[in-house]
């Protein structure tokens, strides 16, 4: 029981990082109807930026600065490569983001080099006991930070002018345009927000084990998360992220014991299995809206 609870907390911790990444995907998807495959590169860039800045400014300012920096990079990408493609098939734009991802990652890798870079976080592998449970502090930090960010984000969408504009544009672009919403600004804002969230997620991925060239693969786990939750549901992204984190953590702890025939490291691919199972039952994810089909 103790082991199970500890596994769950680790799962929720990692899951909240996936939730941040998934939120970035969903925000871009809702605004532009495109899955941005550039998120892994932005996440990696965020982690690397923190690792470079942390020695100069200290950890917390470094996180804020990097998140703003990556938001700026995301804005630039949107302006240069995505805006000219408005009105083109979504598949084409998605592939463009795939190309951008490849390019940005090469540049970022040059800043990583051969070694593992530490992000200089105050948590490391420190452990803390809550009653009988012994868990790593970083899982708790991840959960707390995600809870705060998700709260702020939902408040932003619900209570601010720009949040309203984004919701309007996501609902119906042309009508929003007719009501005076600048859809271009909404696109830019959505990419900026996604970059900001990806950078924070990148920092958390780097806590403890550090950042290396292969770390970008972690961001792809947010893809099953958004599919499980439903591509166009912000709540679904958070739920999907947590589900993916917990499932992965459960497989990490128990698969070796109960299902060794699945092979080592099955936990890494378990989110994709969950995704396939969910899709077989609900083709639009758990919380996604069913597409209304017209000829």
């Amino acid at each position, binding site marked *: 029981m103790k082991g199970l609870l500890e596994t769950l907390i680790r799962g929720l911790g990692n899951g909240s990082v996936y939730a941040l990444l998934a939120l970035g995907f969903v925000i871009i*998807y809702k605004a532009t109807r*495109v*899955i941005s495959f550039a998120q892994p590169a932005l996440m990696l860039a965020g982690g690397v930026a923190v690792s470079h800045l942390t020695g100069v400014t200290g950890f917390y300012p470094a996180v804020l600065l990097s998140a703003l920096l990556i938001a700026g990079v995301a804005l630039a990408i949107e302006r240069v*490569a995505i805006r*000219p*493609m408005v009105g*083109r098939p*979504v*598949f*084409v734009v*998605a*592939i*463009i983001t*795939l*190309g*951008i*991802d*490849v*390019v940005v*990652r*090469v*540049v970022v*890798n*040059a800043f990583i080099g*051969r070694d593992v870079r530490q992000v200089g976080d105050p948590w490391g592998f420190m452990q803390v006991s809550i009653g009988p449970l012994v868990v790593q502090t970083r899982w708790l930090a991840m959960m707390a930070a995600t809870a705060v960010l998700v709260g702020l984000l939902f408040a932003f969408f619900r209570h601010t002018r720009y949040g309203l504009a984004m919701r309007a544009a996501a609902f119906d672009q042309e009508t929003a345009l007719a009501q005076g919403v600048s859809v271009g600004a909404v696109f830019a804002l959505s990419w900026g927000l996604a970059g900001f969230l990806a950078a924070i997620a990148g920092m958390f991925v780097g806590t403890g084990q550090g950042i290396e060239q292969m770390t970008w693969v972690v961001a*792809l786990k947010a*893809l*099953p998360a*958004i*599919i499980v939750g439903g*591509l166009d549901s912000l709540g679904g992204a958070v739920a999907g992220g947590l589900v993916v984190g917990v499932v992965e953590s459960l497989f990490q702890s128990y698969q070796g014991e109960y299902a060794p025939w699945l*092979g*080592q*490291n*099955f936990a*890494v*691919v378990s989110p*994709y*299995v969950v*995704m*396939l199972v969910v*899709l*077989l039952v609900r*083709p*639009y994810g758990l919380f996604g809206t069913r*597409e209304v*089909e*017209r*000829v």
Partner: protein
Amino acid sequence: MTRAAPHIPAGRSRRVRGRPLLYTSYTQDMALLDTPAKKTGTAVLVLLAFALAVLLQDRSLEVLAGAYALAIGAIGLNLVTGYAGQVSLGHAFFVAIGAYTAAALSGPPGGDTLGYGLAELWIWLPAAGLAAAAAGVLVAPLATRLRGLYLAVVTLGLVFLGEHVFKEWDELTGGPGVGREAAVPQLLGVRLDQDGPLGTKEQLLYTLMLTLLIVFAVAARNLARSRVGRAFAAIRDRDIAAAVIGVPLTRYKVLAFGISSFYAGCAGGLLYTISGYVEPGSFNLLLSVQFIAMVLIGGVATVSGSIAGALFISLLQPVTRSLPALVPFISADTTKTPNVFQVETVLYGLLIVLFLIFEPRGLYGLWIRVRNYWKAWPFSY
């Protein structure tokens, strides 16, 4: 009063001299090579391609042979993504199934890895295709339930699951970092991967790949202009509308995935005969992205474009490898920062982005522009 049905000329009717674009029958309009220019052009290209086997050095032939094998895979991806409009990021998975089926069938029995000793090409090549096609047909039901980007992400998941299975299944694949020997190309008792009386290893493999590429390309062109091809195009353009006019969606989506995977499987079986070695880590997302790049850079929904795209991507590597000699600040050393591998990867990404923004029809579109310019010359405005 009944009127006689209008006479529709069947078969090959006469061409009018000096009017290459005047079609006098449906068959003429639908012909693969519908103008004399295309006929001579294609004939010259094919002859030239075969002549290259004796004209080029072995090193270049090896690169081209690999490009032709990749082109078969790219045509497969273009059938499902370009013609039928079903976005698949899972092509690497089907390529892997083909590669391992071929390797296992033709491998020596009783070695470290599975092998059945059936080295004849005409046994393992169709088998590799069929095994991959079977996997494609199994995946296809998902495609009938999902649309657009949901499908792209699911096929992406397939690559990761496949990579995991192949890394774990040591008996078949030799395990990550170790790998196994690839399929043995033997045709009627002649080993094509060894120098022999008929030519060097590279010459033999080059000729084999070229011949097979022509067979697969013609088959794909014929498929695309048949009833099946028209159904694919209808589904791509608007699947509900296609269903309304009587195209059975499920059947044709399954068919598209099956055929595409067959091509991928054959390409996988052939591709690794050149290096003679398969490593399970090579069937990753990057391979899928490379196939997507070939299709997009070459030209969506064109067979000739797929071939051009495959050649382009394959030749990119030797070209970037020769850059350090020309551009002094690019290093061949992987530990230096602007090195050839980085340049190569950046080029993949940039080329995809630039082609999509500036010439969505790809290399094929560039060719159309050039052709139209000269067709109308000197009134090219």
